[in-house]
């Protein structure tokens, strides 16, 4: 009743100027009906679960157990004391630290090379984009065979130039790096396309002006025009590649299962094992929260740089 009264007062206050309240009202109901399904599903499938995962991380819930208890930070304490967690975190950070700079730099290099000439542009673009489209799981299996210690293409090629092959995915020293190569292979084309779009949007007259101003050679032009103008694109590409690299799971799960002896264990994979193979939901949730913190950090980097003129499109 009190609510209805305040609502009426507000409406009356706003309506003093014109006859809009009636109109507002008549459109307000369809509007609410239109957003209602989205609101309900957002609450049920996104926001609720997000809060749920945080809450869950403070419990000892296990799937199937009839009851659970609030255990405070016990999951986090266990996590911090767990060698596997630290290995997993270090591997994830290593993966990100290798894949992001490599995939961004190569993506930029390929985009610049494609853009610097006029022939075969569309062909190169298509080829480099192919891994983005191809189902990663299927291609992981192909990579697995390519990296096969005995019959794989990679070792075969190495032999032919007189080098010793390795058991790439079964070797503690190389498994994670092999996954990095696959990660770069897959992300490169996506970054290239984003950089190409960025390059195309640089106004041509700027290059003319640079030429008139005496910026000779590719490097001077790149420093004066291309690189600064690509700034927003670069920030975007770095953050996107970063978030995707933190999410690495498919290749790990199919090719190494985190092994050998945890040498390629990564955060999401650990979370998957704890949450969905051991059904330790509470502990899995705590791992998810750690993952979320990293993604959030990257997002913050992006939005703080966004104020300097990053455009989303």
């Amino acid at each position: 009743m009190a609510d209805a009264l305040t609502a009426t007062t507000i409406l009356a206050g706003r309506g003093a100027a014109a006859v809009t309240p009636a109109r507002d009202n008549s459109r307000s109901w369809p509007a609410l009906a239109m957003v209602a399904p989205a609101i309900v599903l957002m609450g049920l499938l996104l926001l609720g679960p997000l809060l749920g995962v945080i809450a869950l991380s403070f419990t000892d819930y296990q799937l199937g157990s009839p009851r659970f208890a609030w255990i405070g930070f016990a999951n986090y304490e266990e996590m911090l004391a767990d060698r596997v967690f630290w290995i997993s975190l270090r591997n994830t950070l290593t993966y990100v630290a290798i894949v992001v700079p490599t995939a961004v730099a190569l993506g930029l290099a390929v985009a610049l090379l494609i853009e610097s000439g006029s022939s075969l542009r569309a062909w190169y673009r298509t080829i480099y984009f192919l891994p983005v489209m191809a189902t990663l799981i299927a291609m992981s299996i192909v990579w697995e065979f390519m990296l096969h210690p005995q019959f794989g293409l990679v070792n075969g090629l190495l032999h032919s130039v007189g080098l010793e092959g390795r058991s790439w995915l079964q070797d503690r020293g190389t498994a994670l790096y092999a996954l990095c190569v696959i990660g770069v292979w897959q992300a490169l084309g996506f970054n290239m396309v984003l950089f190409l779009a960025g390059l195309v949007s640089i106004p041509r007259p700027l290059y003319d002006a640079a030429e008139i101003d005496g910026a000779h050679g590719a490097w001077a032009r790149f420093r004066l025009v291309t690189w600064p103008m690509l700034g927003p694109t670069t920030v975007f590409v770095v953050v996107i590649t970063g978030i995707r690299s933190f999410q690495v799971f498919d290749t790990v799960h199919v090719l190494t299962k985190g092994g050998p002896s945890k040498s390629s264990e990564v955060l999401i994979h650990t979370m998957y094992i704890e949450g969905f193979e051991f059904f330790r939901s509470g502990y899995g949730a705590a791992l998810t929260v750690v993952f979320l913190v990293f993604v959030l950090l990257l997002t913050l980097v992006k939005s703080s740089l966004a104020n300097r003129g990053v455009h989303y499109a």
Partner: protein
Amino acid sequence: MTPRRHGITWSAARHLLLLAGAAFILLPFIWMVSTASKPQTEIFTTDIHFIPQNLALWENFATAFGKASLWRFLLNGVVVTVSIFALQVLIALPAAYALAKLRFAGREVLFALVLFCILIPPQATAIPVFLLFHQIGILDSYAALVVPFTISAFGIFLMRQFFKTVPDDLIEAARMDGITEFGIVWRVMLPTAIPALTAFGIFSVVAHWNDYFWPLIVLNSEHLRTPPLGVASFRNEEAGTNYGPLMAAAIVIIAPLVIAFLLAQRRFIEGITLTGIK
């Protein structure tokens, strides 16, 4: 930027570098096709040859289709991706229209929530959604594969941005013609939004066709497996012995998207990158 100045040398260097990169990119694809065309005896040998001496492509495909229900996986992929996209549109379009063109209490808050939801990675909600589905007993079903993705905050955001650019006059004219607000969404806004919707559709279908994480979590039954799950389990069953048919299966799984991409490259690249915020 000015190729004429660099002349032939630069042009040659450019092609050389790009071709080297292209070789790295294409190698797995070439090796996949090559292996899928070879008989066992040629696969398990240490000498490298790309062109098989005896073509066994057909046999390998036959074995793959015989041992794994590839057709079933493809069908599941189509059912799941199409259902997801249809439901996403059904839910996102009215919401996007309301957010873009209608005034109602809490609009700004709702839009802020949508923006926030875009940032939630799918892995973050996996455990609670899994528990929820377990509770209501829909694990291991098409519903389990489809429902979590029916709400696409990104879809709402994208369509809202697009609708913002539609002139108000068009909507006013529709109202003058007596079309209801819901009618406006489907009969006026939907047709104008086809390009944006195509981009979003490509994004959505590609993402969910290739998704491995979620189906892996919720599925048990073989007959519900989506393409990535199908090929992964085929590989586990073959335990690294039968690479010819395995590569043939991989070809089958990636073929629909790769062929569609080759046919409509520009649209695909637009779709994947325009909406590449995730």
